[in-house]
């Protein structure tokens, strides 16, 4: 295809999860004529397709649904309003234009659109990336893989695994196990407390799974299948737990490999794209929404974010969105801070100017927004990793003459 071909679509959306699908529906509602969702799996719907448990859909459909039913409803709604969904099409590169290269069962093709929304979601950090030692038997799985095997294929890859992590998704893994008749033998958490909200603390107890806090897996044993894990406590004392699998949960990472290979700027803190408060990337024809922006939020949040991003894209097509420059970068100060999203602010009003901040470890202290030495906002926080902290920017008089600092002063222990 040549460069002067007219764009085939007004908006191309990469990723048919909650964020991508809700954006597509909202774009149609706002009168955008041609919207395509490009999804590499056989079916759109994203991660909820294989979360065979509750609760999904409160915000979107005002009722409690299981993941697969929720995903099916999202797809159905999109099709009903005239969104084109192309499944089994993988985007392989993002280029200025915007132009995206795809691979489908028919081979390579190029798709041009006036705007592109990237909504490729998150995945879990692997055993390899965590440098967990030992041998490499089968039976070491992420929650995502486990859910796929259990809910999509009715398989039971092991019967007595350990679960590593206590994020929300770790409890998803627990529920998935229960569904498949798998009995986890322990839940192992390196931190001193559970990462997910405290109510979850009741769950493993209720299901009869011992919880080991302040412990880490130092070694996986087994030849063909996992036979045991070695677990070390804070003092380095080790014990051996017999198990036939390891579910390596959470520590989400944005699925940003497409961005890393492209002309678009990536934020090494969040792992997602650099965006301004209009969900706009360093190339203003590209937008992003959903968990690609940051690890990790619920389906409902991502769905709402997709809708909000759609409004920005419609504004951009109509020429009503503020210029992408001048803008100010946000700088993080404080060792416990993991990321802030958006990373850049454009001088404009009327956008969802909420900053989302996360910590990398449990921490207590005062979080502030400081511009040119002036403290504009502060709040005491008692934060755990993977829990959202929101800073309402719309009430702050921010001028963009210098960097905006997000400062976290931790309490002395």
């Amino acid at each position, binding site marked *: 295809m040549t460069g002067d071909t007219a764009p085939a679509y007004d908006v191309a959306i990469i990723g048919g999860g909650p964020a991508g699908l809700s954006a597509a529906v909202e774009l149609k509602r706002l009168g955008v004529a041609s919207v395509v969702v490009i999804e*590499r*799996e*056989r079916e759109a719907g994203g991660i909820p397709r*294989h979360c065979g448990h509750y609760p999904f859909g409160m915000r979107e459909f005002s009722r409690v649904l299981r993941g697969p039913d929720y995903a099916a409803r999202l797809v159905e709604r999109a099709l009903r309003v005239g969104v084109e969904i192309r499944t*089994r099409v*993988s985007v*392989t590169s993002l280029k200025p234009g915007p132009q995206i290269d795809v*691979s*489908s*069962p*028919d*081979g*390579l093709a190029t798709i041009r659109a006036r705007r592109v929304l990237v909504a490729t979601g998150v*995945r*879990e950090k*692997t*055993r*390899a*990336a965590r*440098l*967990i*030692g*030992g*041998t*490499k*038997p*089968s*039976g*070491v*799985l*992420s929650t*995502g*893989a*486990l859910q*796929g*095997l259990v809910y*999509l*294929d009715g*398989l039971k*890859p*092991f019967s007595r695994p350990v679960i590593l992590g206590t994020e929300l998704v770790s409890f998803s893994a627990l529920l998935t196990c229960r569904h498949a008749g798998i009995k986890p033998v322990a839940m192992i958490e390196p931190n001193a407390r559970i990462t997910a909200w405290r109510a979850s603390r009741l769950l493993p107890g209720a299901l009869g799974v011992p919880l080991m806090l302040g412990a880490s897996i*130092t*070694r996986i044993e087994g*030849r*063909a*299948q996992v036979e045991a894990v070695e677990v070390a406590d804070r003092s380095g004392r080790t014990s051996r737990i017999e198990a036939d*699998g390891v579910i390596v949960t959470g520590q989400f*990472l944005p699925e940003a*490999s497409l961005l*890393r*290979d492209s002309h678009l700027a990536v934020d*090494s803190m969040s792992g997602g794209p650099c965006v301004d408060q209009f969900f706009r990337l360093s190339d203003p024809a590209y937008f992003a929404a959903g968990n690609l922006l940051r690890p990790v939020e619920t389906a409902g949040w991502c769905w709402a974010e997709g809708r909000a991003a759609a409004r920005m894209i419609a504004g951009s097509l109509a020429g009503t969105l503020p210029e992408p420059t001048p803008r100010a970068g946000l700088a993080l100060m404080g060792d416990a801070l993991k990321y802030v999203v958006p990373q850049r602010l454009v001088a404009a009003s009327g956008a969802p100017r909420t900053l989302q901040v996360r910590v990398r470890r449990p921490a207590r202290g005062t979080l502030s927004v400081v511009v040119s030495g002036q403290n504009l906002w502060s709040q005491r926080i008692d934060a755990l990793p993977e829990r959202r902290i929101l800073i309402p920017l719309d009430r702050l008089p921010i001028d963009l003459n210098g960097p905006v600092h997000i400062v976290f002063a931790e309490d002395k222990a």
Partner: protein
Amino acid sequence: MSRSHAQSGFDVAVVGAGVVGCAIARRFTLEGAKMIVLEKAPDILDGASKGNSGILHTGFDAPCGSLEQSCIASGYSEYLDIRERLGLPLIRSGALVLAWTEEEEARLPELMQQARDNGVGDVEALTSDEILRREPNLSRRVRAGFCVPREFIIDPWSAPHAYLLQALTNGAELRRECEVLAGQFDGSAWRLETSAGEIAATCVINAAGLYGDLVDQTLRGVSDFHIRPRKGQFVVYDKAAAGLVKSILLPVPSATTKGIVVCRTAFGNLLVGPTAEEQTARDEAVLVPETLAQLQERGTQIVPALSDIEVSAIYAGLRPATEFKDYQIRAHREINLITVGGIRSTGLSSALGIARHVFSQYLELGHAPHALTDPIWPTVAQISEAGERSWQTPCNDGVVCHCERVTRAEIEAALEGPLAPGSFAGLKRKTRVTMGRCQGFYCSAELARLTKDRLKHPMSGAPDDR
């Protein structure tokens, strides 16, 4: 002679389907011998050949005048001769030997001389500026070095697959899950007792890699060497890292190891490793978190931008080292046995050369097969970044493993044919499914569906190999 001994079964039984056994099966088959390859694992390449660096060495740093050096030289040139016909990739990366300290720098002239003595005459000394011009992402602390333009990157699995496939399509046989447990030589032929029944062959070649000494003990009662497994751990970085370096980055080698290498893979990733750690276990290469973290740190010292890139895989391999430096290849004339042992750290490069050398020893034993006049040249699937991949062509039936871009068509093809895998690990080595950054997060379910009832040892979850 194959005719006169027809009743005794095969001319030659090769014990072990590592890269060396595969290359031997090919050479002997092309020369007209009736071959059988016996492998104890469910799939080929399950021993030392499972985890290496994937470098096609010139042998520039091999000991001068050694058997290893001559086998590397002839293996290297045969690979270049045959690779296109078999569909094997070649990434013409070249290598840089880098000195980071004064002592290392002082050794460079001696190493360059050794290279020239080994027939690698095109090495060229480089200043740090010249090195940084070639490799702008390298740490500025590099002092000096030299380039070895013909050190290349290959696919460590497709090469032995192709060798064995050519043997099989030209009449050789393969038995998997067939462990050689004992053997009797009756003065003219062998009767091998295996876990899958008895096999008769006139001659036996022991290419059992990490078990070479044990198989010799089983068949001869003694072994002339002892295997001392030497573990090598690696970290592999995601695709984004591969763009950071062009050449294979080699350190100044020490007496026992080539040292930590930074090197692209044929699949467009980047590896840092291997370590060299002696151990006694032959069947278990345990990954050690502290060591992996050190490799990561070493990688970042050499290429600082690696600090920002995710580790996508970790693995370890075992070298079949012995108490000797050189290969241990010996014909035991009186019992028609050839031992091919101690192929420790260069077997991928030298295998084709070893096979020629072993065949000449076979002729010396008095055998005289007739070479095939018009052998078949099968090709293996091209899964490296060096050529066009299935996902870039029509009728690929869709991508299944998104990280490594493996298509349904590639998986279907891999599940068919004489080398159809028996285990999920075997499928991974043929296609690279689940070996990328997500390690099966997205595609495990689809793979379970695709491989259902088609693997002798079905997948229970995604095994977490290289």
